[in-house]
């Protein structure tokens, strides 16, 4: 696929990555100023709360996608997996009455899909794009089967707590996402596993020869992404007080876009969670602002595409300058 055969882009050095973050912060500031001029409500605490809550799931999924893309892979199945694991969680909740069993079931279900991806990609060395394209269809199908294509209303306050509760203007999911960010940062930067994720993406062969078992690490990366999809499912169910078979549709495209915006290389080995956070934030602000200004949904698509292309073009432009 493109991420492997594409000619080695002479991509940014560490400075380049910092530059990318500066660009993102700049764009975030510009977008915020623009939207706040168009609408004085943009900067209200309430709106910021809404904004953050609406992208909380994208935060989680994109952080998982960052791990995957750092290994040079891709996971098209996350959106479907959110629907599937949510279905398993809700059905477990409904049939056992225990929210905790429901949580566990959702996360395990997410991990199961992740494991299938990981097995085919890490163990059999098949293309991540194709494998996750297959699970993209299969997980969505399983979600429809579990729900029998219908939604299931959820009333359990414990199950809904994470996605549905707010402390004042602050949805509880935000500190939770922040916590996950810290936890995943520790995992990525402070553990051997995290180093191995980079090593796997940077040079699979070397990582193998050095005894880092990159194939096995790949399986765990996809399992991790699956677990995050399961968590996202719990948040989504809490947010909409029901389990929905069509939830998370094309979420993976949003996540991939955000991760690319955040400067993670498609070929793997380079990128940071901070970049992904900025990418999601920029993306979320733009979507939020476009809703506030009542922008035509078609124009929103064009803007999304233009930003993606623009940021990547900006990269090549700045590198040309340096080279």
């Amino acid at each position, binding site marked *: 696929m493109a991420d492997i055969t594409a000619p080695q882009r002479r991509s940014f050095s560490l400075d380049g990555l910092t530059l990318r973050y500066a660009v993102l912060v700049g764009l975030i500031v510009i977008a915020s100023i623009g939207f706040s001029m168009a609408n004085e409500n943009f900067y209200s605490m309430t709106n910021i709360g809404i904004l953050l809550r609406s992208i909380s799931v994208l935060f989680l999924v994109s952080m998982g996608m960052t791990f995957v893309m750092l290994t040079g892979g891709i996971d098209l199945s996350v959106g479907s997996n959110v629907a599937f694991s949510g279905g398993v969680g809700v059905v477990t909740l409904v049939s056992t009455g225990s929210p905790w069993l429901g949580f566990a079931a959702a996360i395990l279900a997410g991990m199961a899909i992740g494991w299938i991806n990981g097995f085919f990609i890490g163990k059999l060395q098949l293309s991540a794009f*194709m494998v996750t394209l*297959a699970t993209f269809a299969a997980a969505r199908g399983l979600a429809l089967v579990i729900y029998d294509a219908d939604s299931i209303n959820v009333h359990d306050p414990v199950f809904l707590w994470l996605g549905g509760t707010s402390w004042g203007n602050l949805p509880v999911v935000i500190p939770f996402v922040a916590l996950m960010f810290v936890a995943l940062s520790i995992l990525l930067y402070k553990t051997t596993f995290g180093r191995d994720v980079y090593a796997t993406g940077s040079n699979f062969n070397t990582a193998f020869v050095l005894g880092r078992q990159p194939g096995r690490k790949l399986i765990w990366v996809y399992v991790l992404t699956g677990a995050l999809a399961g968590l996202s499912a719990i948040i989504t169910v809490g947010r909409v007080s029901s389990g929905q078979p069509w939830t998370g549709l094309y979420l993976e495209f949003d996540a991939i876009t955000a991760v690319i915006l955040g400067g993670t290389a498609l070929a793997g080995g380079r990128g940071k969670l901070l970049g992904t956070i900025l990418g999601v934030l920029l993306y979320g602000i733009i979507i939020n602002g476009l809703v506030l200004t009542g922008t035509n949904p078609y124009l*929103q698509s064009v803007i999304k595409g233009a930003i993606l292309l623009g940021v990547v073009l900006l990269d090549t432009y700045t590198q040309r300058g340096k080279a």
Partner: protein
Amino acid sequence: MQDFGKLFRENNIIFVTLALCLVFFLISPRFLSVDNMSAISRQIVPIGLIALGQFFVVVSGNIDLSMGMGSVLFAIVLGVIFGVTGGVALGIVAVIVFSLAFGFVNGLLVAKLKLPSFIVTLAGLFIAQGLSGLIIPRGQQIFLMGGFFRFVGAEKYFGFYASFLFLVALFALAYVVYNHTRWGAYVIAIGNSEENAKLAGINVDRVKIGIFMFSALCSGFAGVILSSRMGFVQPGLDGNGLLLDGIAAIIIGGTLILGGRGTVTGAFWGLLFIGVTNNALNLLNVTDVWHQVFKGSIILAALGANYVLWQSRQAEAQ
């Protein structure tokens, strides 16, 4: 026996598809009825066009995610031109020009600026989706009435739909281009090693741009056929399903997603495989909700099978 083994490995998709047909036939004899075959042949046309464009892109080591939504966009270009001027020919010309231009931009960004095709065409996907709604004022539907659209949508020759014959002709053309012209050899060469292709004096950038233009053109044809068949166009149709089916078809047909290898006949059989699967799931009264599960599992199984065959070929080579 060994010859048969080799024959099987190299054409496994043909055997798998035929076996699948047999199974479906045993479950439901109506499967092999003329009507049903004709329905399958009809349904695969838009997927097949996307798959054909995608085939060259993937063999060259790239991917074009923009062409599912692209076909919706091009259908709407046709609709708008037809709606405004009433001219069918003008509409078709507009689709051809517009799709070639779209592909040219994709190709230019990939070839000249060395951007990964994945990112370029992901952005292209969003832009196509957006444009499809913006160029029709207020998103109204436009009706496509008249002989041409009826012809594209319904005309049959020798019991085959004209659109299917067109697809077959295009596949035949692609077969010839891929196997019997310089261009085809260059696509393979680029997919194997851009470096070596350059060493051999091939103008790699030009070939790449051409590949993306061809992909967009195929997608333009898909748009025309899709809209003629429905009798109207409107924005907001979901072209991504078409794209994913198209990619699945060529991969199942033995095209290497990493590029460099693939056959047109394999892609065609992969397309039949997808078409037969889609059709049979309906015909066998598989509940709608199970469709995706089956489809995903079948793709996964096909990937696994290819892996096993690849392993055995490695073993044989040793």
